[in-house]
């Protein structure tokens, strides 16, 4: 599937210089006298790099076979992270490049979004909030719930989160994965 420059729109996935890219911001630019352009801000789905580029109206781009699928995280075998499509039981193994920062939020049996390019995982997006168990933290201080102050807590997935002083080992916490901040006890 090829797209001409004037068909570009937000969220469209295209191939550029061999890499799949997603359109983030598309603006039609047409001086009253002069030719039309489509100015695009896009993100390279492999490198995450965001850049701007302008296309003439008659340029065309090849669509990228990219799709997002909800999958269940199964396990990590030391090399690959394994995911499964719940309905069909199809399994996919993603390497560390694809998983990236999402790794520290991945809990077994949680659902996350796997981006596939030509049926290979290239990116993992976890939900905005995850619930994780505290594996290790300094002992909690009773009666300290209202006061400020925080301490580091290591979660079962390996993530380290700043938590209030009253949090105990074994507590289940709700974390905002976008900021990495503690939200509440689950």
């Amino acid at each position, binding site marked *: 599937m090829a797209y001409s420059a004037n068909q570009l729109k937000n969220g469209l996935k295209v191939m550029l210089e061999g890499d799949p890219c997603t359109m983030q911001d598309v603006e039609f630019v047409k*001086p009253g006298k002069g030719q039309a352009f489509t100015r695009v801000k896009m993100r390279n789905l492999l490198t995450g790099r965001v850049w701007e580029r302008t296309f003439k109206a008659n340029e065309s781009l090849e669509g990228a076979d990219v799709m997002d699928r909800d999958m269940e995280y199964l396990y990590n075998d030391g090399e690959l992270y394994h995911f499964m499509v719940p309905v069909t039981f199809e399994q996919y193994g993603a390497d560390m490049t694809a998983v990236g920062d999402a790794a520290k939020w991945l809990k077994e049996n949680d659902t996350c979004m796997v981006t596939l390019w030509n049926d290979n995982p290239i990116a993992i997006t976890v939900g905005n909030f995850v619930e994780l168990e505290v594996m290790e933290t300094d002992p909690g201080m009773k009666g300290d719930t209202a006061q400020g102050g925080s301490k580091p807590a290591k979660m079962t997935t390996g993530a380290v989160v700043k938590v209030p002083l009253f949090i105990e080992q074994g507590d289940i916490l709700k974390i905002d994965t976008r900021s990495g901040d503690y939200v509440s006890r689950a």
Partner: protein
Amino acid sequence: MRDWKPAASVENLQKRAAILALIRQYFTEQQVLEVDAAVLSQCAVSDPFIDSLEVNFRGHPTAEAELCYLQTSPEYAMKRLLAAGIGSIYQMGKVFRSGEEGRFHNPEFTMLEWYRLEFDDVALMKDVEQLVRSILAIGPIRRCTYADIFMEKLGIDINQSSTEQLACEMHRHVEVELDPDDRDGWLNLLMSHVIEPMLKDEPVFITDYPASQSALARLKAAADGVPVAARFELFVEGIELANGYHELTDPQEQQRRLEADQHTRQTLGLPQRPLEQRLVSALEVGLPDCAGVALGVDRLVMLALQVTHIEQVIPFTFRNA
């Protein structure tokens, strides 16, 4: 349920109507006559970068079609009226441009175009300023020549820079591929991609366009003697709002420019469409000395209402019509 609702709020459409009424009131006070010349014609605009919508006319539903064109501006028809001695006129109505869709574009849009007898580009800018400032809450509008704005914003002397230097400057800002020798193309890119966003803070008339971008404006000599087009554009908040000329009245030059456009169309593989030769005939009889300007009414309303998408000020966009 099908999406039947207009994208614009009823409140915005009421405000739009009030602005249209103000515009008509302005021209009534100025004793400029309203006309509603045809927007369906056997001829099409010659400009290679403006694409007309094609329409089939049939004498009978099963008869062979005659190809007609929806006008991209009422310019040709209005000039024929001017040559017929009608005096200063304005037209506010729909015009059509194929392929133009975006935040500031809809293929069907409302254009205000007017011509003032015995005005030049400088006098017409005052007129535009008076009208626009009666609708938008903006201060006095600055005047700056095309060459000066390039110097001020980019430090480029366009009269000294090679096309390669212009392309090089453009590549510092945005990646784009264009014919390396297309000087006006690079100038347009720098203007639309780099300079326009820098014009957000103050309304400005860019004046004295390069002679190569004169369209239907006559040429004049700039202060430094370089020939420039007697053409201006108005930018408010970095948005291109109006484009005006001290009009070309020379029929031979008009004929030459029509043919040059047709030639460019051929070179670029664009459709060859019937040129408006009746315009040349009208100029042969005599177009009175006049200046004319076209203003995007939808954009004016967008600026007045401080909205970000044209769909917020027109009842239905092309995709919803």
